């Protein structure tokens, strides 16, 4: 983004790009219109550019229902791994990519309310702290980018998205499973079926624009939860968790969980 030290990104005030990065002598600022959003050091410009992309999606892509989730697909059926930052969804997502699942997104789930399909937006998977070494060991052939220390989310490294995911980025997928992973070192790793209503409420809590879409959001989310099976997935070991999610792909969606499961 920045060209030379001190040179401004070509963006005179008055134009309306949603987000601009300004190179300064000592660092950068992300700007919205004329006002700086936040000054950030040059050394972590790349993670910030990535958060800037996310910000643009959350702020502008209201034609979709947007979740904070990773989305992976196998055999035409997609698993939504929803949860707040630090719940382990990126790590689990990376582990599933290693097992041949297709990456739709690591950070944002985009549901097209009209078609009821999840849209891919394959970008590098952002791994944090301990996940960086873990995924490096689990998937030795995966290319990880440089490690950015001490960002606002800790240490960050980006995993290159599989070529297949990028080539098939125009191909949406049907939601089949909604999984809520929560990582804890002492957790008992299990895939616990959730009632549909509970899944709805938990997924809604991870929506960015549920209120903005109003009634359409309720119906689109309801339809999605209606056809998908919901699970809570507390896990300590990411490999075991990936194994459990992998097992889902063997099960037919209709038979996975009865409507009144506990």
């Amino acid at each position, binding site marked *: 983004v920045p060209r030379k030290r001190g040179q401004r990104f*070509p*963006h*005179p005030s*008055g*134009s*309306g*790009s*949603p987000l601009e990065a300004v190179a300064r002598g000592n660092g950068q600022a992300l700007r919205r*219109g004329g006002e700086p959003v936040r000054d950030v050091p040059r050394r972590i410009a790349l993670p910030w550019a990535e958060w800037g992309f996310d910000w643009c999606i959350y702020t*502008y*892509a*209201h*034609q979709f229902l947007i979740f904070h989730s990773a989305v992976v697909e196998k055999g035409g059926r997609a698993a939504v791994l929803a949860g707040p930052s630090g719940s382990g969804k990126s790590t689990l997502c990376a582990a599933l990519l290693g097992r041949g699942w297709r990456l739709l997104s690591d950070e944002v789930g985009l549901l097209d309310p009209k078609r009821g399909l999840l849209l891919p937006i394959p970008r590098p998977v952002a791994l944090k702290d301990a996940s960086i070494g873990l995924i490096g060991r689990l998937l030795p052939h995966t290319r990880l980018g440089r490690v950015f220390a001490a960002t606002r989310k800790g240490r960050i490294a980006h995993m290159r998205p599989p070529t297949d995911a990028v080539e098939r980025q125009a191909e949406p997928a049907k939601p089949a499973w909604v999984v809520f992973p929560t990582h804890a070192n002492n957790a008992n790793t299990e895939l616990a079926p959730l009632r549909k209503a509970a899944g709805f409420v938990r997924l809604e809590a991870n929506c960015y*624009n549920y*209120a*903005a*879409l*109003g*009634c*359409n959001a309720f119906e689109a989310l309801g339809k999605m939860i209606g056809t998908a099976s919901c699970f809570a997935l507390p896990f300590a070991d990411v490999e075991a968790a990936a194994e459990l999610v992998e097992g889902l792909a063997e099960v037919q969606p209709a038979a996975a969980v009865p409507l009144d499961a506990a």
Partner: protein
Amino acid sequence: LPRFNPRQPFLSMPPDDLLLRVFADPALIVGLGVEGWELLLVQARRTNLTARLSYWIECAGVLGDVPDRIGMQFAAVRVVAASRRRAIEWEVNRLHRVLTAAGYPMLLLKGAAYAAGGCRWPAVAARWASTSWCPVTNSKGPKGISSRMAGSRPSSTFTTGVLPKMEP
């Protein structure tokens, strides 16, 4: 239009009142190229008029000439406009309940008045924050806030308990 430089999209935009010209004549968008849409969307977004622009284009009957990818942006801003409108309607609805219960009439001004009056473009109403005034009257006539209102005519006045129905 200026020569478009994709490496410097904003530098290659000289001062241009394209947005105003399109509001004056929506048919201008027919055959607008990449550089034209780039400028138009930037100007519309900067002035918070994207949703209104989309409704304006639709009313002029040239929505079919909008490229698909621009149409997606229009769909997105319309969602926001509709949600702001809902928020205004909700606010008016709540205030109306309280004020009518206490025996006061309710005046709506600006955006809220347009919205409650059934303005054709939700975006128009959504641009302004809702403003509601409660005229205070006593035996000596108008007083306080309402006296400042003496010369102005409100766009919508509700003195009954009936509000326009909220859309689902």
